[in-house]
């Protein structure tokens, strides 16, 4: 993959960690966009074609699950893989995320191997 990655998390620290782990995992990208909440993410998605979205669930303004539904409704990122990166690790949360359109789910804390196993197959498809 050589495109743009959008990382959505209210923690700037976590956005940096996600990007660093993607790089270590060998996920190549040309540009990075960062959003601190769902509204910022929607603005960026309306103006940019992205190749991968990494999204937190517990965020202010709107949750990651609500954001997924908005992205789906507005067809802002048709076919773009969305991977949830969150502390919420229950089966129920995973199911909700997949139903709302997520293609992958990574629970915090995570390792490079989690990124390799959950993100790389989506980019190769």
């Amino acid at each position: 993959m050589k495109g743009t990655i959008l990382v959505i998390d209210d923690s700037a620290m976590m956005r940096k960690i996600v990007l660093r782990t993607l790089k270590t995992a060998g996920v190549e990208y040309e540009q990075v966009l960062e959003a601190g909440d769902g509204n910022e993410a929607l603005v960026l998605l309306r103006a940019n074609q992205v190749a991968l979205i990494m999204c937190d669930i517990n965020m202010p303004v709107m949750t990651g699950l609500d954001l997924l539904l908005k992205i789906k409704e507005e067809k802002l990122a048709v076919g773009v893989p969305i991977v949830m990166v969150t502390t919420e690790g229950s089966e129920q949360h995973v199911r909700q995320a997949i139903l709302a359109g997520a293609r992958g789910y990574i629970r915090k804390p995570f390792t490079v191997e989690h990124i390799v196993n959950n993100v790389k197959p989506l980019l190769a498809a």
Partner: protein
Amino acid sequence: MSESMLTHKPYGSQEFLSTQNRDHADEAVVEVFSMMLGFEIGPVPDTDSGQHPGEPNDRTAIVGFSGSMRGTCEVRMTSLAARSIASAMLGGTPVEEGDDAIDDAIGELCNMLAGGWKNRVPTLSSDCSLSPPTVISGADYKVHMRQPSMKLSRIYQFDVHTLYLTLHREDLGAA
């Protein structure tokens, strides 16, 4: 009666105070520190001894629980320990005192510890939600609960630093 009592099976006080729950907390701490920070960490043997001398533990992060358990997860440490955590999260980049990254780091740490603990408790995993973290600077504060609460306190040692973890559980059955 609150909405949460109608829709969720409350997490019992016996379960909360059990040895198994203490182990869940320890496992969550070890997992987060080893996977995200690269630190070895372990509980301090005299875990309920209370005061420890030295630098004040003036950095605190708190995450709230709601749903089948109402309460908080609180982590406390010195500013130096908080800087060390922020630096580790940034892959070893030094962090100066006053950098926003410090509060961000301990907020995320608390979030992951709270999530890691509750995901290990089947009753809470899907029926308990986490609030965004709140970070407090300063040692002179008190957390007030709306209802009587019980707490589980643990002390851990990593590198040369000490981390204090407290899980508070409100009694949902109280008037």
